[in-house]
């Protein structure tokens, strides 16, 4: 397994998967990310990140049911694995830790 450290975008994608719960497939993730972050998110980038997350074992996927939309192609739904959840928590903890030790005045003046 490659390193379990999460990149910033990887973290966002993983969080989006968690948010969308049972509707987390590539296009939806893309849209949601665009909506929340306000940046333009390319499908290709999301795809490669999803692929990487799956390779790292942080997310898992399964094919859904075939519908008449999407040219009859099935969607691939993603879900966060335990390892993914752990990685997310670890990242959050790390941040909280920092926030807890930053003196109040340090960021106030900026």
């Amino acid at each position, binding site marked *: 397994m490659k390193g379990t450290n999460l990149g910033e975008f990887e973290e966002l994608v993983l969080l989006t998967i968690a948010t969308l719960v049972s509707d987390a497939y590539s*296009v939806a993730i893309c849209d949601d990310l665009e909506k929340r972050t306000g940046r333009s998110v390319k*499908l290709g980038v999301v*795809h490669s990140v999803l692929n990487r997350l799956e390779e790292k074992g942080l997310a898992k996927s399964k094919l859904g049911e075939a519908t008449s939309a*999407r040219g009859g192609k099935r*969607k*691939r739904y993603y879900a966060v694995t335990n390892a993914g959840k752990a990685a997310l928590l670890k990242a959050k903890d790390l941040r909280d830790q920092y926030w807890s030790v930053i003196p109040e005045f340090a960021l106030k003046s900026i």
Partner: protein
Amino acid sequence: MKDDLNITPPRWATHLLSWYCKPELLEDLEGDLNEYFQRNVKARGLRKAKLIYVIDVLKFFRLYTIRKPEFVNLLINWIMLSSYIKTSGRTIVRNPLFSMINIVGLAISMSVGLLMIGVLSDTLSYDKFHEHHSRIYRVTSHYEYLNEKDGNFMATSSLRAAREIKETFSIPEEVAILNREFSGDIKAGEKIIPLSGFWANPALFKVFSFELLKGNPATALKDPFSIVLTEKSAKKLFGTEEAIGKAIVFNNDKQYTVTGIIKDLPTFSHIQFDILGSLSTKEIIAKDDKSELAWDNIWNTWVYLLLPKDANLALLKANFDELSKREDPTVKHTHIELALQPLDKIMIGDDLGNQIGPVMGKSSLWIFGALTFVVILSAGFNYTNLSIARSLKRTREVGIRKVIGALKRDVLGQFVVEAVMISLCALTLAFILFLLLKPYFLSIEPSVQKLLVLDLSPSLLLYFIGFAIIVGITAGFFPALFFSRINAVQVLKNVANSTFFRKLTMRKVLIVLQYCISIIFITSTIIAYKQYRHFVAFDLGFKTENILNIYLQGNKADILRKELSELPEVKGISQSVMVTSVGNYWGTQMKYHANPIDSAGVYYNIVDENYIPLHEHKLLAGRNFTAKADSSESEVIVNQQVLKRFNIANQDPAKAIDEIINVDRKDLRIVGVMKDFHYGRANGRNSRTEVVLRYSRKDARLLNVKIQSTDLLATYSKIESIWKKYDAVHPMEAKFYNAQIEEAFAGLKGAVKIAGFLAFLAICIASLGLLGMVVFSTETRLKEISIRKVLGASEGTLLYLLGKGFFLLLAIATCISIPVTILFFEKVAFPELANHAPLSIPEMFLGVLGVLLVALIMIGSQTLKVARTNPAQVLKSE
């Protein structure tokens, strides 16, 4: 939700996606793209959506989406390839003799192939440094006098044509003119250096990409008395000083100003010069010479046109024809046709007369290429022959491979790989041979050395490797095909009974072919050498022995002559303007009063009163010239051909004396009639032609010094030291007459050398092949021989038994090749070669005998070895 037929994404893009994408990712990806597509159709319209779809498909071509190649197949191929290499390596090592024969044979022939590739790559890289090389054309002319076509196109055309093209033609963008000849002694300060070059017009720098280091390309060749030097000549004349703007004196006469320095010309430029003079100078100098701008003065000017891209060449040719029609009436009985020759074809194109410098020529390239091909073919035969011969030992291997599951193409692949391996081994050896041969090859003929460099470059090495692979594939293909057709069941059941090995016809044919090639090469070499000796020692009708021709190079004859005549070794000195019988022609027009309209060309030489006795020309009637101080020309000596051509005095030499003829617009009295001699080169068809000898003591260009000495070298250096006293600038240029004649036939000598070399190679290769065959066939019959021996056969009978098959093949080869050679020389070569020596059959057989002797030694030694083996030892190990 029915999809309209129109709103589907581009089908080809979807196909592309499904072609490259991993199957496990494909469905999802396709679906996503489709969803986006539908969305885009609504938002941005169908066309844009399609475009985005295509771009996205292309963008998804990433490392993680691409389908891995059919992994298993590739793996097998890889494993098998290494297995092939391993087995091939083992076979090569196991049969060192056969492998050596194959590798050495291929290497020898490939070294010639490498030379050929080098020559080709050199010739093809000529003139490519010109930026517009594909758009530059040269104007060539075809001269026709009295409807007599001489079939020769000239690389030159006339100044008149150049001017007309420049002024009236619309198609050419620029017209560059080079005019012969701007050569002589150049004096800069105290230094005098002889340099040579051309007159040229300013457009030269627009047409060609000669780089002008200093000076303005637009004006450097514009004004009269401007001279452009190459870097090298500038250095010679001025050293490190700035040359631009300096004055130089040309031939102690006119003064010129240096207006440009040109970068030294690349080796691969068909135009070579030291200096260029502005053409406008020539126009001033030759102002009074009417012939300068004559339509039929097509001997001195090279015209190069820069045409626009996609120029209409047919239209240009039509313009040329119009020009000819317009200008032809200005000269009598003459038709001159102009044509175009692309710059890129100059080196490898048709063999034109009057080239600006040496060229390779199509015919020599073709001949050399064909000979190379024959030699390589011969080595390829060896490979095919030996591989099939040895197939007996390898059929089992192939059978087992097939049983295990190898397909036909796998076996084919295996043997081709093996052949390529061997040819790559041969390449390394061939490369070493190539490096060794290179200097010899370049020194075969002086012109070759000027033309070719044969420098190694990465691209050349790549060509070499490519060449080796091609040779390997071609040589290995037939054996490979043979092996791939083997029937596994048959070979595994019973090797000895399989019918393959009874069919030896092809092998026999190949051996006969190889020996035919060898014999043809060797006999041709012998014949060509005989011709060379014949021409060098040819009876020209006068004597050339011990005559040293010293070129005066502008010096006065008298002083040098006086000094030289004081040497005790010098038996006589005469003077002349040219050397006959070595391929030089000086021509002029002649008329005879009996037929005033009929003027015809005659060749001439201007000599003094000593010339005829010194060269022992035979006078049939009349007398020799008498010494005469005044310069007016009044007497002439003609040969029999002149009497015949003009029908003077019914061709009776005695009566022709005192007849008046008009030579070069002067009325001259015939004082003597000489016997015909070979004015041209002895192999020329019209070498024994109409010649007049004219008298003048002033116009001499060279001294003919007859020497009688036991130490010619010492005498030569004595003469040289005298020369140095009078001329410090020019090194003495002197050659013995016989050596000059030999030089005139240097081309033939070069051909003999090449043919001899190739004959040697062909014989080597054929012998190697024969050796392999003999060794093989004797070894496979070892048991049979042993049994025969036990039963009482003598060594002699065994020798006969083993050798007779091969002797028969050699006999057939001889019977085929000798008539072919004779036919070739009688029908093809000799009609082109006047005055040739007759074919001498005994000498041809000598060559054949040589080849056969080598073959006999090969067969004899091997069969004897087998015949002498102890039968007990062979039969014991059953």
